[in-house]
């Protein structure tokens, strides 16, 4: 039995639950007398509710109660009570708080009935009359109203400029500039937001909720409803996808809790797919990039400004332009990031927030400037390679981006590329090859874990983190089993419960590093305890052994100097009459390391597209994504994360866009029929490479997280490939056939090499 599990492509420990339909998601918990809630949303974007007529709906047999702002009381008064761990600066939205409408599809009521169908039917009988006010939802028309993005959202850092980019640019011989746009995008995890709220006699409430952070929901609900933390238990063993949408508590958890507390009955509230478009999105953003280079391809100036949309009540911020100050070596960098307030829901973090937005513009611009100086775009990136973090003036703890370039290019066959656009074709299919690179923060947050080793030699480790599909159950089990040299089948990892030790929100690619380090730490504690006990055993091969003489593997503790002298874990516990070992542990980032180094993961993405010359349709036929993210705990689950990210990137580049009707301030395509995401047929060959990257500084596990790094460079790599195929530079995502054709038509004389 080998017990060195990390780095191995283990199958998911929760795999059989997922393939048999027995993994339980938030809407799948049952209770006696369960009631069903159906949420009503506003049909206007701005104004006031004049009247909400529930009389007819109340007549429907089976309707128990209808909650609206008119009959809900006893909630927290202050805005700040509605803040959660991921709130941006501002006044959070308060559901059913007053008659004001702040954005279209704002939740304005909840029908509770004995069946789902009755609740839905009764909701259709509610008549709402509004007093409408003038609204503003068009980002591009309102850039003049932008203002500087404030500090306050966790992780947000203001961009820093350096040198004098403007005057260098003005004098430069080789330069480009362009405006890049993308509209709102919605996360659309396949499981819709759902909460089953169970009211208990003693005033406690248990919430089975779809969330990326049980502690965050616990805090939020306890603040709003004035409950003590210990009276709110939040449970979430499986989450059907998050991608950031579950970082903040969503309004269904408020609705379900409200109804359960008021009615003293268990209540389930599930959003509809349409409602999945009503609470936060990747903000539509307009970006302007200008760059100059010398004749050798050295970047001489970078200017990058971004205007993101936000709501009227909160200032959602993300790190967009900052990446342009660290990605390449350049003395003159001018960065600007501003927000435009619109009558929309507050945007929400969505997979690689900010970085993916930035890379679309910036990495496309790098391609443009490389073409301006007639240098291969990969070669151009190598010329401007940043060894150090120029903003912080610190080296990276590790940066194997060059290896990503080389291995990715070799796998893709990049050396066979002819630089000329429109130079490769098969019949009427224009073929293009493009590439781009990206970076993401390798972060670690404080996290806690508990371990219980029982007399039968079984270990249970727990931490209140979540499983959104990333493989948390599996990698934590691997880490625990390896640390204690135990058979992986003897180890169980539990998560998703506020009764467990606290873990950070599952986001930012930091879960493996944060919770993994805590799991390792707590298992080290158990190990130390076992060594102590082993040494206390009488007349055993390990009697009196010092901890440093001992090690563990294959379910045994043995002398390093004499592996034959050993005792099994069970023997040690039996001989010392130990029923169980219970340890708690925690781990957090090393503040000293942060003062000396910067921590980033990196990726290089190579894409091939085929563009139909007559129809303008784009197909991504091949993608190679080479990733440097430190040690990879499980190449199988990590590979799947990167694979999923590449699919997201393709989807973003070619399909995803929530279209706003600016007359009504409403997203028009709020369903999966009209909001397109990549389906099976859209996806072709995807190759993933994890390059070797050794890093002792980043965290005790040497890992950097893989949840976001895979997506960042995909859309620009595709956009660059489309340019290479067609000579047309589509700067507005998604790249749809109409844009390709129209630009080809209008801009026949685009700059060609």
């Amino acid at each position, binding site marked *: 039995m080998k017990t060195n599990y990390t780095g191995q492509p283990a*199958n*998911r420990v*929760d*795999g*059989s639950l*997922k*393939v*048999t*339909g*027995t993994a*339980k*998601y938030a*809407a*799948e918990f049952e209770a006696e007398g369960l009631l069903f809630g159906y949420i009503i949303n506003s049909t206007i974007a701005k104004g006031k509710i004049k009247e909400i007529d529930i009389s*007819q709906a109340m*007549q*429907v*047999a*089976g309707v128990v109660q209808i909650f609206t702002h008119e009959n809900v009381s006893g909630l927290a008064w202050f805005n700040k009570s509605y803040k959660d761990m991921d709130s941006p600066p501002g006044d959070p939205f308060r559901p059913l708080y007053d008659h004001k409408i702040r954005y279209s599809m704002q939740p304005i009521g909840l029908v509770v009935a004995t*069946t789902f*169908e*009755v609740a839905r*039917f009764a909701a*259709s*009988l509610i008549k709402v009359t509004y007093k409408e006010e003038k609204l503003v939802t068009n980002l591009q028309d309102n850039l003049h109203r932008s203002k500087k993005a404030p500090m306050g959202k966790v992780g947000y850092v203001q961009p820093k400029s350096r040198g004098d980019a403007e005057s260098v640019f003005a004098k430069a011989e080789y330069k480009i500039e362009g405006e890049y746009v993308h509209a709102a995008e919605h996360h659309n*995890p*396949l*499981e*819709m937001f759902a909460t089953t709220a169970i009211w208990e006699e003693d005033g406690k409430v248990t919430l089975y909720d779809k969330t990326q952070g049980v502690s965050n929901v616990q805090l939020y609900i306890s603040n709003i409803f004035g409950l003590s933390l210990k009276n709110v238990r939040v449970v979430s063993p499986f989450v*059907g*996808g*998050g*991608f950031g949408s579950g970082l903040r508590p969503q309004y269904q958890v408020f609705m379900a809790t409200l109804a359960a507390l008021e009615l003293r009955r268990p209540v389930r509230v*599930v959003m*509809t*797919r349409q409602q999945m478009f009503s609470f936060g999105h990747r903000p539509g953003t307009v970006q302007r990039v200008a760059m100059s280079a010398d004749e050798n391809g050295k970047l001489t100036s970078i200017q990058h400004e971004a205007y993101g949309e936000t709501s009227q009540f909160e200032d959602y911020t993300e790190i967009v332009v900052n990446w342009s100050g660290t990605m390449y070596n350049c003395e003159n960098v001018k960065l600007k990031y501003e927000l435009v307030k619109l009558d929309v829901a507050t945007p929400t973090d969505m997979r690689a927030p900010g970085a993916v937005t930035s890379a679309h513009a910036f990495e496309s611009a790098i391609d443009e400037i490389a073409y301006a100086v007639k240098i291969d775009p990969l070669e151009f990136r190598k010329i401007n390679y940043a060894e150090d973090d120029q903003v912080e003036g610190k080296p990276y703890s590790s940066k194997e981006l060059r290896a990503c370039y080389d291995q990715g290019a070799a796998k893709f066959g990049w050396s066979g590329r002819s630089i000329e656009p429109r130079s490769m074709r098969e019949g009427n299919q224009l073929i293009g090859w493009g590439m781009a690179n990206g970076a993401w923060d390798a972060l670690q947050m404080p996290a806690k874990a508990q371990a219980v080793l029982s007399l039968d030699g079984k270990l249970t480790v727990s931490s209140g983190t979540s*499983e*959104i*599909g*990333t*493989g948390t159950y599996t990698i934590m089990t691997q880490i625990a089993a390896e640390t204690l040299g135990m058979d992986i089948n003897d180890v169980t990892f539990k998560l998703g419960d506020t009764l467990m030790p606290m873990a950070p929100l599952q986001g930012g690619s930091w879960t493996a590093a944060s919770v993994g380090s805590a799991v390792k730490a707590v298992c080290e504690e158990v190990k130390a305890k076992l060594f102590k006990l082993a040494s206390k055993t009488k007349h055993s091969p390990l009697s009196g052994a010092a901890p440093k003489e001992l090690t563990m593997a294959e379910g045994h503790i043995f002398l390093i100097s004499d592996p034959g002298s050993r005792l099994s874990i069970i023997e040690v516990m039996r001989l010392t009459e130990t029923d169980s070992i219970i340890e708690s542990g925690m781990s957090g980032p090393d503040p000293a390391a942060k003062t000396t180094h910067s921590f980033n993961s990196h990726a290089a993405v190579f894409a091939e597209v085929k563009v139909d010359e007559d129809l303008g349709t784009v197909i991504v036929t091949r993608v190679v994504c080479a990733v440097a993210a430190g040690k990879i705990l499980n190449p199988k*689950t990590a*590979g*799947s994360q990167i*694979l*999923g*990210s*590449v699919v997201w990137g393709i*989807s973003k580049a070619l399909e995803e866009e929530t279209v706003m009707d600016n007359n009504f301030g409403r997203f028009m395509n709020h*369903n*999966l*029929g009209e909001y397109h*995401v*990549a*389906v*099976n*047929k859209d*996806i072709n*060959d*995807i190759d993933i490479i994890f390059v070797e990257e050794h890093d002792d500084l980043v965290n005790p596990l040497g890992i950097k997280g893989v949840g976001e790094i895979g997506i960042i460079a995909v859309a620009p790599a595709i956009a660059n490939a489309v340019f290479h195929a067609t000579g047309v530079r589509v700067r507005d995502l998604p790249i749809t056939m109409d844009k390709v054709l129209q630009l080809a038509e209008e801009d026949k004389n685009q700059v060609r090499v």
Partner: protein
Amino acid sequence: MKNATETVELPEHYPVSLKVNGQAYNLKLQPWVSLLDALRDHLQLKGTKKGCDHGQCGACTVLVNGKRINSCLTMAVMKDGEEITTIEGLAKGDELHPLQKAFIEHDAFQCGYCTPGQICSAVGLLNEGKANSLEEVKELMSGNICRCGAYTHINSAIMQVKGETGNE
């Protein structure tokens, strides 16, 4: 509906017999209950997932008389007397269906929410004798969205099982 006055009439309950995973169930359902909600809320078979309730995602795919359908687009009363197989009915005891095993082996899922629908679709595909090439699998599996993006792994799992059963 719009003209309804004080008392609002609700649809009557009808007897419905469903044979699900070999077991017979006699239910009384209003006609507005979808097959999906009948399975999830009345029979407590939560393995079949709801991802849109509008026929746009495939998460609710089940087999009716061996053919795959979106159970959210079907009223339960329409399937009176028919044989339904859900994800819960594929394994034989502890022995997983070859596709279930292949999905685990190929890591053909992440969050797992689309997985029951993907597997039921794939079983239907193989039953129907369709999907004779990777291109066909891709086309015929495109009604099942996987937002986690496990498509290439899903396809290799299906192709593997297809190959194995083809060789028998």
